[in-house]
C-alpha cells in the first residue's frame, strides 16, 4: 500500500513548530489567541498522526525514510531525516494525543496567567521536538531533539520563574539529565567511529547489530549500549539519576502530565527500544537495564509511599513505572515495554491532570490538607479513580494488561526480576490507595474555607480527563495475553499469545492486596497510620527523605565542585596570575635596582662601571679558559 501520508510525516512536528515560531515572534501581545493557535496546531498534528497510523494499520506497510542534507563536514555527512515505522506511528499518536489534551486542559488551567502565550509556545516547541525525536531516522537528529525536549522541560519547569524552588528545580532537571545526555553523546561518537561508513541511521545500526556480524566487538558494543542507556537513565529518571523528576513537579501541572509523565520521560524507554539491536548484541548491557529498571521500580515506589505532596507521589510513581518499562526492555521484551509506555501515557496523564484539577480547586498540594473532595468534584474523583485502578493494575483497566505483559516478560527472563516486579506492583497499589483515599474520601482536613470553595473544574479541563479515562480503560486491549496484535504490529512478527497464569495471578493478587491494605489504613482506619512509622521511625524517615540521595549528591558533587572551584580560583589568582605579576614585579625590581644605583654620586656610577667592566672582561675572556 502506498504510504501517502508517511511521506509528509515531517508535517507532524511542523505544525507545532510553526505555532512556536508565530507565538515567539508575536510575543505576549497574543495572549489567549496564542493559546488557541497552539491548540489548533496540536490538533492538526494529532489528526495527521492518526491518518498516518491508520495508513500503517494495513499489513506490511513499508517503512518510509526521507530527509535532507543537514551537516557535511569532513567525513561527517548527516541528514535531517525522518523515518516512519509502526513504532514511530504509535508514538506519534500517543504524543500528539496527549499534547492535544494537555493543550486543551491548559486553556482552562492557565487562563489567568499573564504569560499564557509563552507557556503555549514552550509547549508547542516541546511537542515539535518530541515528535522530531520520535520521527528521527538517525541518532544524531534524535540527539538534537532529545536535547531540545530537555530544554523545553527545563523552561517549563522553571515557568514560574519567580519562585526560587522552580528555578532550582529547572536547573537541576537540566543538569542531571545532561549527565545522561553526555553518555548518549559519547555513545554517538563511538558509533560514528566504529560504524562502517560513519553511519548513524537506525537502518544501518540494525544491519550491523541485528546480524551480530562482529564488525564491532562485544566489549565496544556493551560500552555503547551502556552509554546509550545512561542517556535513557537521565531522561527517564532511573536510579541514580532520578532525583530531578520529583523536583520537576514545580512546573505547571499540565506540564507534569505531558512531559514528566506521558512523553518526554518515556523517551528514554523509546530510545532503548529504538536501539534495541545494540542492546541485544550486548547481553551484559541488557542485564544492566533490567536490574536498574527493577531496582528503580521498587525503590521509587517505597519513596512514593512516604510522600505527602500529591504531585510528588505521582512523580515517584512515574519513576517507578518507567523502571517497569526498563525492566521489560531489559528482559528482552520491547513490545511489553512499548505497551506499558502506551497505556502509562494515558493513565498517568490522566492522574496528573486530575491532580491538577484538585490543586486548581484547593490551591494546595499537600494531601494531608485535603480529604473528602470526592463529593465536591465528582468527575475528577471518578476519572482519578479510574486512573488509579489502571495504574494499580486491576483488570480490566489498561494498566493491568501492560503490567501483566511486563511481568510475564520478567518471569521469562529471571524469577528475581519477576518477584521485584510483583512487590513493586503491591507497593504501587498501596500508595495509590493512600493517595486516593486521603484526597477524595473521608472528611476535609486543612483550611476549611478553601475546601468549601472547592468546586469542579470547568469543562475544558474535565473533558480531557474523561477522554483519558476512557482510554485508560480500553487502551489495554490492543495487546492481551490472548491476542498479541500490538506486538506483531510493532515488530512485524506473528501474533503471539503470551499468557502466563502465574503472572496474572500474582500481579492481580498483589494489586488487590495493596488496595485493600490502603483502604484499611487510610479509609477505614482499621490499621493505625503510624503503625509503621512508630515502630520503624528511621526507616520511614529514610523513605520520606528519599534515602538522602539529594543530600548525598549535594555533598558529593555540588559541594566538591564548589570546593574545587574555590581552590582553582585561588590557584588561578595566586599561582597563574601570580606568575604573571611576578614577571612584572621582577622587571620592576630590576628597574628599582637601577634606581638605587642612581644616587646622584658620580663616583658610585664609576665604581659600578668598573665592577661591570671587570666582570665583563672576566666573563668574556675567561670563558676561553674554562
Amino acid at each position, binding site marked *: 500500500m502506498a504510504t501517502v501520508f508517511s511521506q509528509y510525516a515531517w508535517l507532524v512536528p511542523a505544525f507545532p513548530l510553526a505555532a512556536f515560531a508565530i507565538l515567539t515572534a508575536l510575543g505576549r501581545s497574543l495572549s489567549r489567541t496564542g493559546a488557541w493557535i497552539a491548540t489548533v496546531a496540536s490538533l492538526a498534528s494529532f489528526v495527521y498522526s492518526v491518518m498516518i497510523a491508520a495508513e500503517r494499520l494495513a499489513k506490511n506497510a513499508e517503512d518510509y525514510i526521507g530527509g535532507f542534507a543537514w551537516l557535511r563536514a569532513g567525513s561527517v555527512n548527516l541528514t535531517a531525516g525522518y523515518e516512519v515505522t509502526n513504532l514511530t506511528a504509535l508514538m506519534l499518536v500517543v504524543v500528539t494525543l496527549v499534547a492535544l489534551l494537555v493543550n486543551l486542559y491548559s486553556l482552562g488551567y492557565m487562563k489567568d496567567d499573564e504569560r499564557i502565550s509563552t507557556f503555549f509556545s514552550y509547549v508547542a516547541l516541546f511537542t515539535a521536538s518530541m515528535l522530531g525525536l520520535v520521527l528521527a531516522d538517525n541518532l544524531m537528529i534524535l540527539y538534537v531533539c532529545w536535547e531540545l525536549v530537555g530544554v523545553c522541560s527545563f523552561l517549563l519547569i522553571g515557568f514560574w520563574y519567580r519562585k526560587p524552588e522552580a528555578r532550582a528545580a529547572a536547573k537541576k532537571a537540566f543538569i542531571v539529565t545532561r549527565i545522561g545526555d553526555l553518555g548518549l553523546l559519547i555513545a554517538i561518537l563511538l558509533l560514528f567511529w566504529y560504524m562502517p561508513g560513519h553511519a548513524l541511521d537506525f537502518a544501518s545500526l540494525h544491519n550491523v547489530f541485528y546480524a551480530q556480524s562482529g564488525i564491532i566487538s562485544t566489549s565496544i558494543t556493551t560500552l555503547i549500549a551502556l552509554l546509550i542507556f545512561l542517556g535513557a537513565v537521565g531522561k527517564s529518571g532511573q536510579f541514580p539519576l532520578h532525583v530531578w523528576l520529583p523536583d520537576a513537579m514545580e512546573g505547571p501541572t499540565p506540564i507534569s502530565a505531558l512531559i514528566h509523565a506521558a512523553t518526554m520521560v518515556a523517551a528514554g524507554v523509546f530510545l532503548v527500544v529504538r536501539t534495541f539491536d545494540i542492546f541485544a548484541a550486548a547481553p551484559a548491557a541488557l542485564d544492566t537495564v533490567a536490574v536498574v529498571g527493577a531496582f528503580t521500580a521498587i525503590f521509587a515506589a517505597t519513596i512514593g509511599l512516604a510522600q505527602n505532596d500529591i504531585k510528588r507521589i505521582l512523580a515517584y510513581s512515574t519513576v517507578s513505572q518507567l523502571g517497569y518499562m526498563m525492566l521489560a526492555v531489559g528482559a528482552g521484551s520491547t513490545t511489553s515495554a512499548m505497551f506499558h509506555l502506551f497505556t502509562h501515557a494515558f493513565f498517568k496523564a490522566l492522574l496528573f491532570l486530575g491532580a491538577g484539577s484538585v490543586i486548581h480547586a484547593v490551591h494546595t498540594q499537600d494531601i494531608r490538607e485535603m480529604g473528602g473532595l470526592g463529593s465536591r468534584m465528582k468527575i475528577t474523583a471518578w476519572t482519578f479513580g479510574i486512573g488509579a485502578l489502571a495504574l494499580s493494575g486491576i483488570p480490566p483497566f489498561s494498566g493491568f494488561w501492560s503490567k501483566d505483559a511486563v511481568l510475564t516478560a520478567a518471569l521469562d527472563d529471571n524469577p528475581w526480576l519477576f518477584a521485584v516486579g510483583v512487590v513493586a506492583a503491591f507497593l504501587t497499589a498501596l500508595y495509590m490507595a493512600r493517595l486516593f483515599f486521603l484526597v477524595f474520601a473521608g472528611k476535609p482536613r486543612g483550611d476549611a474555607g478553601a475546601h468549601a470553595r472547592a468546586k469542579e473544574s470547568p469543562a475544558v479541563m474535565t473533558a480531557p480527563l474523561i477522554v483519558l479515562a476512557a482510554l485508560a480503560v480500553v487502551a489495554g486491549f490492543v495487546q492481551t495475553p490472548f491476542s498479541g496484535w500490538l506486538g506483531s504490529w510493532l515488530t512485524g512478527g506473528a501474533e503471539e499469545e503470551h499468557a502466563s497464569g502465574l503472572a496474572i495471578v500474582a500481579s492481580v493478587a498483589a494489586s488487590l492486596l495493596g488496595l485493600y491494605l490502603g483502604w484499611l489504613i487510610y479509609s477505614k482506619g482499621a490499621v493505625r497510620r503510624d503503625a509503621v512509622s512508630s515502630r520503624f521511625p528511621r526507616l520511614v524517615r529514610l523513605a520520606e527523605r528519599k534515602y538522602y540521595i539529594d543530600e548525598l549528591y549535594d555533598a558529593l558533587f555540588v559541594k566538591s565542585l564548589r570546593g574545587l572551584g574555590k581552590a582553582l580560583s585561588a590557584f588561578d589568582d595566586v599561582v597563574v596570575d601570580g606568575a604573571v605579576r611576578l614577571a612584572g614585579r621582577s*622587571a*620592576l625590581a*630590576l*628597574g*628599582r635596582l*637601577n*634606581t638605587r*644605583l*642612581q644616587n*646622584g654620586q*658620580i663616583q*658610585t*656610577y*664609576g665604581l*659600578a*662601571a668598573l665592577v*661591570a*667592566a671587570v666582570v*665583563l*672582561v672576566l*666573563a*668574556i*675572556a675567561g670563558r*676561553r679558559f674554562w
Partner: protein
Amino acid sequence: MEALQTLTWSDTRYLAPELALAVAAVLLALLDLILPRRASRDLIGWGALVGLLAAGVFVGWHIYDLQSAVDAGKEPIRNLLGGSYRVDDFGNLLKLVFLGATALIVLASLGTVKKAEVPIKGEFYYLLLPAVIGAMVMASSGDLITLFVGMELLSITSYVLVGVRKRSGASGEAAFKYVVTGGTASAFILYGMSFLYGVTGSTRLSDISGALGDALADYRALVYVAFFFMIVGFALKLALAPFHAWAPDVYQGAPTPATSFLAIVAKGAAFAMLYRIFIFLYRAFGSEGDQAAVREDLFLALAVLAAAAMIVGVAGALKQQNAKRLLALSGVANAGILLVPLTLEVNSLHSSMFSEFVYYLIAYVFMNAGAFAVLTAVSRSSGHEELSAFAGMYHRAPWTAAAMTALLCSLAGLPVTGGFFGKLFILFGAVQTKAYWLAAILLATTVASYYVYFSFIRQMYMRSGESDQAVAVPVPTGIVIWLCAAASVALGILPKPILDWIDGIFSLGADFLAR
C-alpha cells in the same frame, strides 16, 4: 711615512662641509659680540641653521661626486692626509644624519628656549656647530688620532653645552658629571688605543687591520687589553648599561636642546667611531682558529653590552616619573638596539648591518628629536619635566598629542612607523645570523618598553591635566614635531627609498674593508 703628508689646497674641497661649519661658527660668534645685548639671539639660531644647511649641501655634493666616481669605475674614496681623513659614503651618510638632526634641534629650540633657561642663547647656537664638526670628523676619520681629536672636539663643546645655564646648579652639576665621565671614557679609549698602536706600530686604521693578525700571535693579551679598554670607554660614551648611570643625571640637568643633541648626535658619532674601529676586525682576523675566536670574543662582549643596555634601559624606565630621565633611559635601550647590527656576524647571507644601523639611526633621530621637541613645549607650559606634565594633553593640545602618539609608537616599535621597520630589519639580520638570543632580548625589551612609552599615552589620554589651559606650541617647534611625526610614519610605510639609497651608495667592502 705617509702619515705626515700635509694638507693641500685641493684637499680643502673634501673638507668643505666641516670648513663651512667652522666658518659659520666663527662668524656667528662675531655676530654675537656685535649684536646689541637686548637683540633677539634667534638670528644666530637662523644663522646656525643656514650653516648646517650649507654643510649639508656640501655633503650632498660629496655623495654625488663619489657616486660618479663609482660610475666611472674609480675608487669611491677620497683619502686625505695620507688616509687619516676619509671621505667615503659611510662618513657622508652619517654626516647628513648629524647635520639633519642638529638642524631639527636648532629649529625646535628656536622660540621655545626661554631666556631663563639658556641666558646666553647665542653661545648655545654657535657652540653646536663645532660639536657637529667633531661628530663629522669622527665619522670621517681613518686614523686613531683623527678619531680622538674629533671625539674630543665633540666632547668638550658638549660639556659646555650641558653647562650653558651657568646660573643653574643642576646644569653645572650635570656638566661636571659629564666632564668626569667623558674624561674618564676618553682616557680609557686612549689607553686602549695606545696599546693598539703599540702592537701594530701605526695609528692608521687600515694599517692596524693589516698588522693586527700577526700581532695577535705575539701579543694576544695586549690585543685583548687594547680592545677591552676601548670597549669600556665606548660603553661609557654611549651609556651602555651598566655604564649608563651618568646619562639620566646629565640629560636631566642639561637644557632640553642640549639633551637632545647628546642623545642623538653625540651618540651617533660614538657609533660611527665604533664602526670604524670594529668593522676592521673582519679584515684583520680570519674566519678560523684563534683569530676568529678573538673576534668572536670581542663581538660577544659588544653583544652582551647591547643586551644589557636594552634590558637595563627599559627596566629602569618602567617606573621613571621624570620625562627627561625616562627619555635618557630610553636612549640607553636604543643605544643597545643600535649596537645590535654591529655585533651580528657578517656571513654568506648577512652583510647588511650598516643598512640596519643607519636606518634605525635615522628613525631614532626623528623619534627622539620629535619627542624632545614635544617635551620642550610641554615643560615650557607646565614649568616642570615630570610625566604628569603630559596629563590631559588630549584636551589641551590634541594635535600635538596625536603627533606624540605617532612618535611614541615609533619609539615603541609599533607598526607602521620607522621604529618598527628599523627594529624589523635589525631583527631579521639577527635571525639570519642565528643570533636568536639577541633577537629574543630585543623583542622582550621592546614589549616591556610598551609600558614605558605608553605611560606618556596614559597621561595624555587617560588622565586629566593640572589645568585645562591649551599648551602653546611655537611655530618652529610645531614644525619640528610634525616633521618628525610625519617622517616617523613615512619611514614606516615607505622605507624603501631610503634603504635603496643607502644600499646604492654604501658598500661595506669599499668603505670599510678596502684599504
